[in-house]
């Protein structure tokens, strides 16, 4: 299985990349840093791959999170559904 990161496996969680759409201003830094998992819509806002992060993507995802000028992006432990 290549779905969950080592950390995710250790604590029994998958990990998801998420964005707070209210905080996001569509600056687009994230999509440049992690193009494999972040796309931009026609208006410049990030469209995230909905599936859990795999080991290969985790470092890029962390870079995207750290680079966001609006602090809108974060990595969340699944699988709990947040409403």
């Amino acid at each position, binding site marked *: 299985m290549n779905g969950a990161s080592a950390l995710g496996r250790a604590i029994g969680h998958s990990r998801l990349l998420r964005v*707070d*759409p*209210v*905080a*996001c*201003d*569509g600056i687009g830094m994230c999509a440049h840093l992690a193009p494999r998992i972040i796309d931009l*819509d*026609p*208006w*410049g*806002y990030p*469209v995230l791959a909905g599936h859990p992060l795999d080991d290969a993507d985790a470092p890029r995802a962390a870079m995207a999170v750290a680079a966001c000028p609006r602090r809108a992006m974060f990595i*969340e432990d699944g699988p709990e559904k*947040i*409403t």
Partner: protein
Amino acid sequence: MNQTHLVAEHASPAAQRRDRRLLEGPVLFDAHRPVLLAGPACDTLQAHCARFHRGPDGDTGRARDRDPGTPQARGDLLEDLDRLGLAGRGGAHFSVATKWRAALAAGGGGTVVANGAEGEPASAKDAALLLHRPHLVLDGLALAAHATGAVRTIVWLHDGADDVRRSVTAALAERRAARLTEPLARIVTGPDAYLTGESSAVVRALSGGPALPEFRRSPAATRGVDGLPTLVHNVETLARIGLVALAGTAGHRDSTLVTVLHDRRRTVLEVDPATTVVAAVSRVGPIHPPQAVLVGGYGGSWLPWHVAAHLPLEHRALQTAGAGLGAGVVAPLPAQACGLTETAAVVDYLATAGARQCGPCLFGLRAIADLLLDLARGNGGPGHLRRLRRYTGLVTGRGACHHPDGVVRLVGTALITFQDDVDEHARRRRCLHPGTGAVLPIPARPAVASRSGRATGTATVPSAGIPGIPGIPGIPGGRR
């Protein structure tokens, strides 16, 4: 409701006692303004107690049997609601028992909100309930606070809902005079905007922010207003909780309030879960077979009439047909109207009514509305349809609230239901139903919420009782 049904219902006092209804009959509103045209009179506290068989001191047999201070008594109502599978009536149909358990697990001590800010332009059920049975809603509010260990109760309304506010204010004054033992209930109002009643907007406003939806990493039932457990319940949900507490599960008869939009009027009806769409619409007036019906609300689903007519007005049954009960709106579309044009007008309104916070919603809904308006006016072609499908796919699930998801649902079901109209508009640039006026009412008032649109007009109406002292909520006679 036919005559035989009426006779059967009132045959015996026992049958009457079991027949717990929210309303006595249809309530009529003007479709384009929030004006009440006709309906049963508002219950006073005395009438309310008589109707629901409380004793002269306001006591009820069932409530008397409980010791409200014990965890068992709290759990009792929760178990009843769980057994009945009571779901919220604000649109999301989320389990009440699950919400309560989350609030209890988080330690209680927070807020319960009776949400009467009915943003849905076609809906009037919450107003009808607050105008006629305010005490039933306030009973439910006090019971929910008691059962979940909340210390604060709020009635959340729109600024412009003057008649509703008067009704609730009078009811709270009566409860204060009767010295009910329940938490202090306050009326708090927010801007007259479509999203003011969205639950995260309510929580944000009550925490001192603007009345706009917010992105929440944990549910409000766990961490809401001021970081404490917060339950935002639609007023119909609370009335239902009040009925269950008064009548118990044995006497419980499920029903739903729906607003039928027909002949430029909104009529609020109380229907059994078995009542079909055609039966509900027929109760409002003679109908010529419509071509389609909008179910749920403006963020709801269009269904062709032949599909919808014999479906029961019950959430799960509607789900199997690709719709849902939503906020309980049933809006038949006359055969001579253009479904595409109606949908374009509604989506244009919904795009304007957004909170302007999330990019995909702010830009995406505007783009979708403009494409639809072009198509409706005969200025769009097949390329418009392709972009429409692409954009609706792109905005789904990408807002802080479900506003864009509702628009996607409406547009998606419109493209299927009105396929012939859409083809005619896109390929031949003409309308199959020219010259018909708009059927669905579009509010003329400014629909845009703003970041400066904070909760205003806070009317503090202290109700009776001694906060912190256990008592049976909502039961008169808890003398100081």
